[in-house]
């Protein structure tokens, strides 16, 4: 059993390392092929015009403009392994520090949305599935199908218009009030700024999990073991509690962890619309201004995040489902 788990951990670490190498190589190739000139991005158009040839040469050397591709890559990788992701061109700070802050902001947003959408989606899915064909089911299904095909940035704009512009209940953007000293920003302010983007993300996330849960409920409620539970005198409520939930929850939890990548994808656009200072927003700014070290750092961190979500899904599947857990132990 110990060997099994050791092997599992080993295999997954190897997978993560390979994934990060692959992602970073691809990013490197894309960035090298792009017309972005890091020196120009760093000093700006005006700076370029006023710079001496010598200074330009120095910067070119610093950014490795004339260094061969693989050498540049391995320099980056070597630094990365040592925890140095380089210097951000637009923030003028180490990439690791910038990402650290953005990461926390993004996680607050995504985890809030992820939990709300997971719980809400699960409950709605169960209501719809248990009352298939009822008005509630049609409403939930309609809502989910509509939202599943709604672009997240569009929904974000609508939310912004309704709650921030018309009703003026919530702030338009950013994660703290404008013009307030950082030390005076309360947790309440932060939470208020989180509401709209998190709500937008949740509303979208609900659709997927609700539809999946609904299908699963319909499946499970037609299963032989539900028929037998009924034969043993259990009421619909008892059946849901004793047999339904565990059989429905298992795939739902797995799905929810695996869907972390979708919430992440959605958050890039939603952060942009709300100017929420998270990873997605930073990625867009870095991309637009040619901040290559930042871009690489974000790509790698994002890949690691999504990978972790999927890994947790796999592990949980093994822990919760006795069919998989026991077969691993018995081997």
């Amino acid at each position, binding site marked *: 059993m110990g060997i099994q788990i050791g092997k599992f951990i080993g295999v997954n670490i190897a997978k993560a390392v390979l994934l990060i190498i692959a992602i970073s190589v691809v990013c490197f190739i894309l960035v090298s092929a792009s017309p972005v000139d890091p020196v120009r991005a760093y000093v700006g158009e005006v700076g370029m015009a006023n710079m001496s040839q010598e200074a330009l040469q120095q910067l070119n050397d610093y950014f490795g403009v004339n260094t061969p591709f693989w050498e540049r890559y391995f320099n980056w990788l070597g630094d990365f392994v040592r925890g140095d992701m380089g210097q951000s061109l637009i923030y003028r700070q180490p990439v690791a520090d910038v990402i650290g802050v953005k990461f926390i902001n993004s996680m607050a947003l995504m985890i809030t949305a992820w939990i709300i959408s997971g719980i809400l989606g699960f409950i709605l899915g169960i209501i719809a599935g248990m009352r298939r064909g009822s008005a509630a089911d049609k409403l939930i299904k309609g809502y989910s199908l509509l939202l599943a095909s709604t672009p997240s940035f569009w929904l974000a704009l609508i939310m912004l218009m309704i709650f921030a512009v018309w009703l003026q209940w919530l702030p338009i953007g950013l994660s703290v009030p404008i013009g307030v000293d950082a030390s005076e920003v309360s947790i309440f302010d932060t939470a208020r700024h989180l509401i709209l983007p998190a709500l937008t993300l949740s509303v979208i996330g609900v659709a997927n999990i609700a539809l999946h849960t609904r299908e699963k409920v319909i499946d499970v409620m037609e299963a*032989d073991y539900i*028929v*037998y*539970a009924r*034969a*043993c005198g259990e009421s619909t409520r008892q059946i849901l509690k004793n047999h339904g939930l*565990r059989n429905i929850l298992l795939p739902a939890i797995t799905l929810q962890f695996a869907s972390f990548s979708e919430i992440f994808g959605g958050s890039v656009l939603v952060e942009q619309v709300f100017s929420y200072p998270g990873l997605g927003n930073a990625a867009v700014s870095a991309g637009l201004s040619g901040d290559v070290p930042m871009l690489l750092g974000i790509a790698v961190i994002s890949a690691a995040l999504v990978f972790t979500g999927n890994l947790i899904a796999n592990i949980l599947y093994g822990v919760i489902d006795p*069919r998989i857990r026991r077969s691993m132990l018995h081997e």
Partner: protein
Amino acid sequence: MEKTKEILNIEDLCISFEQYEKGLRRVELNVITNLSVNVGEGEIVAVVGSSGSGKSLLAHAVLGLLPKNANVRGRVSFRGELLTAERIRELRGKEICLVPQSVSYLDPLMKVGAQVRHSRGDEDSIKRQERLFGDYSLKQKTAGLYPFELSGGMARRILLASALMESPKLIIADEPTPGLDLPLAKKAMADFRSFADEGNGVLLITHDIELALEVADRIAVFYAGTTVEEALVSDFEREETLRHPYTKALWRAFPRRGFQALDGVQPYVKDMPAGCPFAPRCGLAGPECAGEIPLRAAAGGTVRCVRFSGGEEINGGKEAKSNEA
């Protein structure tokens, strides 16, 4: 005709399924027609029929477990009281217990011990479950296994124990013996026998007529969704005391009578002939067999065959049909 008090009485049960064929044409699939069986106190009645003859559907219909697209007509009464949908819900699991046909009826994510105890954790339930496990040679640690870890025979014993946990008036056992070795099958049958002898009833569904003959009091013979004959076990001693040509054909197919197998197969529900479903395979069939076949009572049994001349006609015909089941 009954000497004993009646527990279950099924009269003219008809079950059909609504289905949509290609082009969304709605078809009514008649899977059970004019089926009648009854079980009295102290009786084991075996329902014998080949695969697809509607045995499981009968069990599910009595317990109100059929899917929504099923249409049920006819009368089912329990201890003299007509069973309505609400009444069934009150009785099942308490007065009427089912031994289902396969492991798929066990929750795959729940340990079997808890399932046998029907999720109860009180001391009495645990004691009773442990005793039943002992009776059926199941190791006590079997209780901690999940259904996927059971062998076919273990699953069968779990399903049996699950029904014997309760103290019902009627057990409906759907094929309770496949997968059990002979001593365990005999043990299960002996348990049913003593359960019945305490004044209860057992509806034993099986395709194993020899097993049925060993333990049951009466045999209801199913063919293509209907009862063609109800006979006492003693009627099976000689071919002449049997009433229906299908039952006689079954009798001749017994191993000790030389395995004279019957040609042909049971008709599929979609192309059921009018009148007697056995007519296409029957040596005595004539034009009258395509008409209405009345149920006749004779010598403690019943038969549905126009060629049978003894006994008297039972008025179980059209006008007696009511709508609740």
